[in-house]
């Protein structure tokens, strides 16, 4: 089964963790993840500037490792990211910002990527809220 997973919530929301655990279980079960799409506050999970307390789960780091190790297509909505200060080097330069906090494996792109992935996948799973 081909899945596309859309994440709408910030890394500190339990639903973000649920999305990651679902994604891990899907791959472990032999399924395919066509694309991960981070939208709205979900873009913060792709930021490399997030610092978690030592005794807490570092969800941004877990996502990064997961996407890298599984060679997944991790797309972050560009409009949602820019307005929340999540920028890659190219966008930081374009808008004259002093820092960039989005690096590989993440890619900034448009909402069309979610639509396209949904057409390619058998199931769209959205995670958001609490």
């Amino acid at each position, binding site marked *: *089964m081909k*899945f596309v997973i859309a994440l*709408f919530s910030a890394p500190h929301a*339990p*639903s973000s963790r*649920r999305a990651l*655990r*679902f994604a*891990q*279980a*899907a791959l*472990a*079960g032999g*399924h395919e993840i066509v694309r991960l799409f981070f939208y709205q506050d979900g873009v913060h999970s792709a930021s490399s500037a997030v610092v978690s307390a030592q005794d807490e789960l570092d969800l941004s780091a877990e996502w990064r490792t997961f996407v890298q190790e599984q060679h997944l297509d991790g797309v972050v909505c560009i409009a949602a990211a820019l307005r929340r200060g999540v920028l890659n080097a190219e966008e930081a330069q374009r808008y004259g910002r002093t820092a960039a906090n989005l690096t590989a494996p993440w890619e900034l792109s448009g909402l069309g990527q979610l639509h396209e992935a949904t057409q390619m996948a058998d*199931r*769209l*799973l*959205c*995670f*958001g*809220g*609490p």
Partner: protein
Amino acid sequence: MATLHVLSHSPFSDSRLSSCLRLLGSGDGLLLSGDAVYALQRGTAQRQALDLMPANIGLFALEEDLCARAIDAPPRVQVVDYPGFVELSCRFGKVNSWL
């Protein structure tokens, strides 16, 4: 097409659960995750509504969220882990998350 509805908001803070229950059709499923598992708390109107749900609607709850809140699921509820969640999303034609 049979739909799996996924709830994660507490049923005591908004009307998602009651709206969802109105929408559920024969063959659909309801998965309670996060604070939505509080709907299974004994002696509440929400629990009563779930108990009265017809048998042709699958009722599921995420194990870790039940454990975290010390809620015992009644026999009517099928408790699932993450592999079970994945299996459910394959079994139902589509998954509708109440964000």
